[in-house]
């Protein structure tokens, strides 16, 4: 599937991107809302994987901006967060397919993401 990974930390993008690509997924990466929206305009996204706290923005802003695009109203999304315990319920109420806690386990990230995409 095609995954849009949005995180402002290049170390996280690299680690997550590495295992997702290794698992056979197409990966798009963005560090901010504008880049994420630009990618979503041109490519059909199966799942957005979003950091909650971006530099000067929020992963929830990405969801709102991408879902406002024609044809993207039902794009699935999930969050990566270092405050999963505190934020999980609120993020799920937004319609997130899931919440993955940081630090995440590289060995199981791809399977976690795949399960979220199936929900």
């Amino acid at each position, binding site marked *: 599937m095609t995954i849009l990974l949005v995180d402002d930390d*290049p*170390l*996280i993008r690299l*680690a997550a991107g*590495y295992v997702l690509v290794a698992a056979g997924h197409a990966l798009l990466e963005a560090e901010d809302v504008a880049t994420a929206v630009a990618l979503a305009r041109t490519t059909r996204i199966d799942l957005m994987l979003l950091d909650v706290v971006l530099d000067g923005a929020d992963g929830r802003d990405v969801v709102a901006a991408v879902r406002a695009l024609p044809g993207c109203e039902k794009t699935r999304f999930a969050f990566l967060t*270092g405050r999963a315990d505190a934020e999980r319920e609120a993020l799920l109420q937004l319609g997130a397919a899931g919440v993955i806690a*940081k*630090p*995440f386990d590289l060995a199981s990230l791809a399977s976690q993401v795949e399960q979220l995409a199936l929900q």
Partner: protein
Amino acid sequence: MDDLKQFLRSALNTRIEALETAATTMEADPVGALGTIRRLAHSLRGSGATYGYPQITEAATAVEEAEPEDVPPLVRDLVKTLKAVVLELREPKEAKESTEAKESTEAKESTEAKESTEAKESTEAKESTEAKESTDARASTEAATPGSDATDGPAPE
């Protein structure tokens, strides 16, 4: 995963440099320096354990959550932790290079020894052949010399 670890090593070196630079500006620009240090610490806090180095997450958390006056020594601890991880990431490759260099030297020495032996054997064989040919030639010459005992035919008159 090896290329991922090599990238991590490079990325950590960049962050070590950035932390050290920011730490040196703490007196001149405490607000700017603290902001930079906390951003770097936040990133390292999130990614350290993801890469399998919880000690980075632990040291970075201490920096991110510290009171300003406690930050400098904690930054030094974080840099020390990062340098230890960089060293750990470097060792397998260097060990491999060291092993390869040793193997290469041994292989070269072995080849040189073999070549030396072969050259010696070749020289000895050549010398032996030349000696034999010399002996044969001498014998032949002697055979062709008048009055030689080796002459079968009648002596010229």
